């Protein structure tokens, strides 16, 4: 896979960098890593990180240390849909344990694993700020809240159908 932003992504990159004063382009690192992760298949390989470093004219290590510090950046390949299920206190007291067990059972994977068809990854995360709407998980850009087993089934079916139509 070639790690080069296309024209649209490059325009967005320039918009991000332009927010900061002259010479402070490193400040755009986090937003640019988000852009790179979205553009390059949901995760950041060493090559992708090197590319970001070259774009911002900073050392690769400055990018590696940031990419590994923040939980949202995946430095290993992930499935097409990542289920990031919250397991912190307020979700736990609202039943997140049973939702996690159910997802493990239905998808037959452990946390951190991806289904054989490459569609789903289960990731356990800490508080996502949706405590009043627990249990919940994040999939891509959006939150799936008030989870029940039925709702999990529907979400999985929806993504399976979406993946089938796209292929």
């Amino acid at each position: 896979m070639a790690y080069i932003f296309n024209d649209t992504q490059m325009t967005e990159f320039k918009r991000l960098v332009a927010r900061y004063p002259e010479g402070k382009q490193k400040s755009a690192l986090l937003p640019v890593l988000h852009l790179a992760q979205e553009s390059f298949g949901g995760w950041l390989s060493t090559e992708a990180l090197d590319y970001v470093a070259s774009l911002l004219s900073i050392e690769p290590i400055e990018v590696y240390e940031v990419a590994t510090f923040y939980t949202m950046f995946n430095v290993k390949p992930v499935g097409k849909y990542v289920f990031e299920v919250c397991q912190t206190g307020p979700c736990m007291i609202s039943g997140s344990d049973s939702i996690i067990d159910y997802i493990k059972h239905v998808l037959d994977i452990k946390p951190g694993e991806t289904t054989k068809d490459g569609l789903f990854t289960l990731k356990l995360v800490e508080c996502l700020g949706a405590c009043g709407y627990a249990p919940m998980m994040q999939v891509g850009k959006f939150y799936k809240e008030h989870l029940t087993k039925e709702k999990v089934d529907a979400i999985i079916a929806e993504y399976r159908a979406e993946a089938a139509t796209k292929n």
Partner: protein
Amino acid sequence: MPLLLNIEQKQQQKIKEVVKYITMGVKLLLDKANVPGIRSYEVYRREGGYRSVEKALKEMNPEAIVEEVKKSGLRGRGGAGFPTGMKWSFIAKPEGVPRHLVCNADESEPGTFKDRYLMEFLPHLLIEGLIISSFALGSNDTYIYIRGEYAWIPDILEEAINEAKANGWLGKNILGTGFDCNIHVQRGGGAYICGEETALIESLEGKRGNPRIKPPFPAIQGLWMRPTVVNNVETLAAIVPIINIGGEAYAKIGVGKSTGTKLISACGNINKPGVYEIDMTISVEEFIYSDEYCGGIKGGKKLKACIPGGSSVPILPANLLLKTAKGETRYMNYESLSDGGFATGSMLGSGGFIVLDEDQCIVKNTLTLARFYRHESCGQCSPCREGTGWMEKILQKIEQGKGTIADIDLLWDIQRKIEGNTICPLGDAASWPVAAAIRHFRDEFEWHVNNPELSQTSNFGLQHYADPIHVPA
């Protein structure tokens, strides 16, 4: 089961008695939240939006705005409760050095989701507050640092910024005053620590979120070593009503040093989780049991405990939550919630109100919080990096029925050695929940140790923590 029915009826009756004294509090932030289309500029403006910008930029100077905020008694809504006006007055003004206002939207304290609500449903309220605050502080480039997981909210905020810009509230020479201001939205990468202001600044500079040693404080050397003020979303939104009604009128709402209104995000085992605006004169009991707010405990169960201000603040058993140690009614404000210090009180904190019912296990709850802090420790200071890991491991052991009494003492010892020994408050935030859990629920920990098998299949329950007010007679 006539007896049971009788108890339930009695309980309902008691709850009804509580409901009677509801007084609908003043709403300053969410008063327009239910107006259809309030997210759009047209509707927001029609409802009186941006009036405060006109007033502040045309009729007031920056010093007068800072004075007004000081008069209002507004305290930082992010959790620490530091007076905002005073924070603003600290900003250094060296000649020729740009200053910055940074909005802390990295809401990550477990139990807290109020800023998300404000940004999602009332984006223009935040933008309006940001314009006035930027003017007061002399910030031409203002940044909103939003937690990365709120991935859909930057779009909402950027749309609001563009609308404001198109209508002359942002950009160059705003309202002909010569003041220029742009607001930029930056997403974080998923790190609780970036809610700490110096870690946030580091992150905004494209680095790991390692908190800086203070001093120098951000007001002197912050973002790019320039004078910077970092304020929470709710704090900045509150600037709007302060300018509209005046600092003195704002200070009259509430009680004592808890002025104005506070957003409380209520969650856990309650009937109506959500974001509520309170004027800090209502009692904790009313907040939990009245239909206007939490609507009581879910499933008619009993209240066991509550973490009233975000996961970092001490957990309180029901009896100490509803009444202070002196037997006085406890209210939803800074002073009353902290009455008794950490021995018998807690804190209002960020307003993340987590309610636990009789079926919840304190050990398990403390374990998930300890795991959270271990995960979120930046690793810079040894007491926090190592201590949070040990606390999680020991709690795991106790929770699984493999602990000893000595483990409970060890846990106490570790938390004591973390507190106050780290660069930033994450160390304190990690130790307080563990300390409070042992302080108030030590017998539940001991029960886990003494009943290794039973504790795996059943719960300690309420025992003597029974809710003193709502226990059916």
